[in-house]
């Protein structure tokens, strides 16, 4: 049955997008977890909903609107935080809900029938078009290029910003670049697992990888592989049982996390 499935373009697209999303999640997710930017990423993801709504209202590709909103909101959060000394947490909360509110408003203003937003909120990997795949591929290449290209700088930035400043490295540029890359990854993930479920896919694979290694590069690689495993098997399960793909991937990942953690604890107990 699976082999027959692969003849369909939409199934092929689903698997390619699951694969790309996992690679991006492994790399960016690791940085988000280590730099404590999880709630920040949640904020950016939800803010992008405003752009998706605006896309519908203006009749442009909603994902492009989402991309613009997520980039702008992440840069705004970092700028406002610096200029006003407002707690980043508070700002993230504001952008989080304002983005959602704008999205709902724009969609209600869109003439004609109300579009179904569940594929953006909860993801629908089976509706990923070939155009989406090309878009995702370009964004993934950009992300991998910028992270791999100056990997040692990212490591220093994540570990000790102050020392980076003392060395004369432009930390502000690194921060802005990172926020843009996080926004790009979120846009990649929206179609796969949806705005609401993104955080789980960004955090669970690195959390599992951290159980096995102390090396940042290896954490990224293992997270990507773990991501591929969960998203591909989640996709197969969801097709078999005709259940939502995004939710299946997330629940499978969470289950995997708990299983690995418990197994890890038990193994350690036996050794010592």
């Amino acid at each position, binding site marked *: 049955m699976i082999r027959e499935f692969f003849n369909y373009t939409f199934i092929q697209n689903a698997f390619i997008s699951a694969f790309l999303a996992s690679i991006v999640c492994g790399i960016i997710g690791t940085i988000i977890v*280590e730099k404590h930017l999880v709630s920040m990423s949640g904020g950016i993801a939800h803010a992008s909903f405003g752009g998706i709504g605006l896309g519908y209202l203006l009749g442009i590709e909603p994902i492009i609107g989402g991309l613009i909103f997520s980039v702008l909101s992440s840069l705004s959060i970092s700028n406002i935080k610096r200029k006003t000394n407002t707690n980043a947490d508070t700002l993230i909360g504001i952008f989080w809900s304002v983005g959602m509110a704008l999205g709902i408003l724009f969609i209600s203003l869109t003439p004609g029938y109300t579009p179904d937003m569940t594929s953006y909120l909860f993801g629908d990997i089976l509706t990923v078009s070939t155009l989406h795949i090309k878009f995702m591929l370009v964004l993934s290449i950009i992300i991998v290029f910028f992270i*791999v*290209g*100056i990997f*040692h*700088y990212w*490591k*220093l930035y*994540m*570990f*000790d910003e*102050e*020392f980076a*400043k*003392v*060395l*004369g*490295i*432009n930390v502000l540029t690194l921060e802005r670049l990172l926020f843009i890359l996080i926004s790009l990854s979120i846009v990649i993930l929206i179609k796969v697992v949806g705005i609401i479920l993104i955080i789980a896919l960004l955090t669970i694979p690195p959390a599992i990888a*951290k159980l096995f*290694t*102390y*090396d*940042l590069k290896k*954490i990224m690689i293992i997270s990507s592989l773990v991501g591929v495993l969960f998203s591909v098997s989640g996709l197969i399960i969801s097709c078999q049982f005709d259940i939502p793909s995004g939710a299946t991937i997330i629940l499978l990942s969470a289950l995997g996390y708990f299983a690995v953690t418990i197994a890890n604890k038990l193994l350690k107990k036996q050794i010592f």
Partner: protein
Amino acid sequence: MYDIEIKDLSVYYDSVSALQNVSLNISDKEFLGLIGPNGGGKTTFLKVLIGLLEPTTGTITINADSPIGYVPQFIFFDRKFPISVMDVVLMGKLPNKTKWFQSYSNKDKQCAERVMDQLGILDFKDRQIGQLSGGQLQKVLIARALVTEPKILILDEPTASLDSKTKKEIYEMLKKLNKQKTIIIASHDMGDIFSYIDSAAYINKTLSYYKNDTKSSDEILCKMQGYPYMKSGDKDDKRVF
């Protein structure tokens, strides 16, 4: 010529004054101890020196070709961060102009290993930083500052929350480094530090400078009116301010 010349330096956080009209000249190969109460402005003073904070008024001139070597307090670090000792030390070798797809050269690695060997931490080079003791991690941070080949070394409370044996080790090590480098150290350890430093600056919004001619803490501390003092060897590291 002095290594560092500070003139009428004042720093304000919004309207709160942290440092007022501080002037100080630091000579080549001077070993200067910064002392004073918590919240008195020691850290602010260091941050202005290394350029992390802009002075509100006044000027700082640094006469050195190489960047200042900065050693932060180890207790502020996330010990769970996935990074090895070697990688931390090598950070000092990152060029400030971004080089794409660069990896550390063998020369960089040899330099890092040489410095680690000097500080007695070469055996731990592949360990993750969470597997080190506080004193070992502090030495790793000193090694990272040293690989930048600085002329001036600045340390913020390097011995805070370390046991007295490790404290002594670190001070002895700094004394050796002092033969080639100017060293500025902020410290709570009133008693211990005085046998090593050439001069002391007491910072509490303003700065008073004392030459440590006698190498005895009592005389200088006597000059600093009202400064609470506990002799080294007192229990724990609790100071009452």
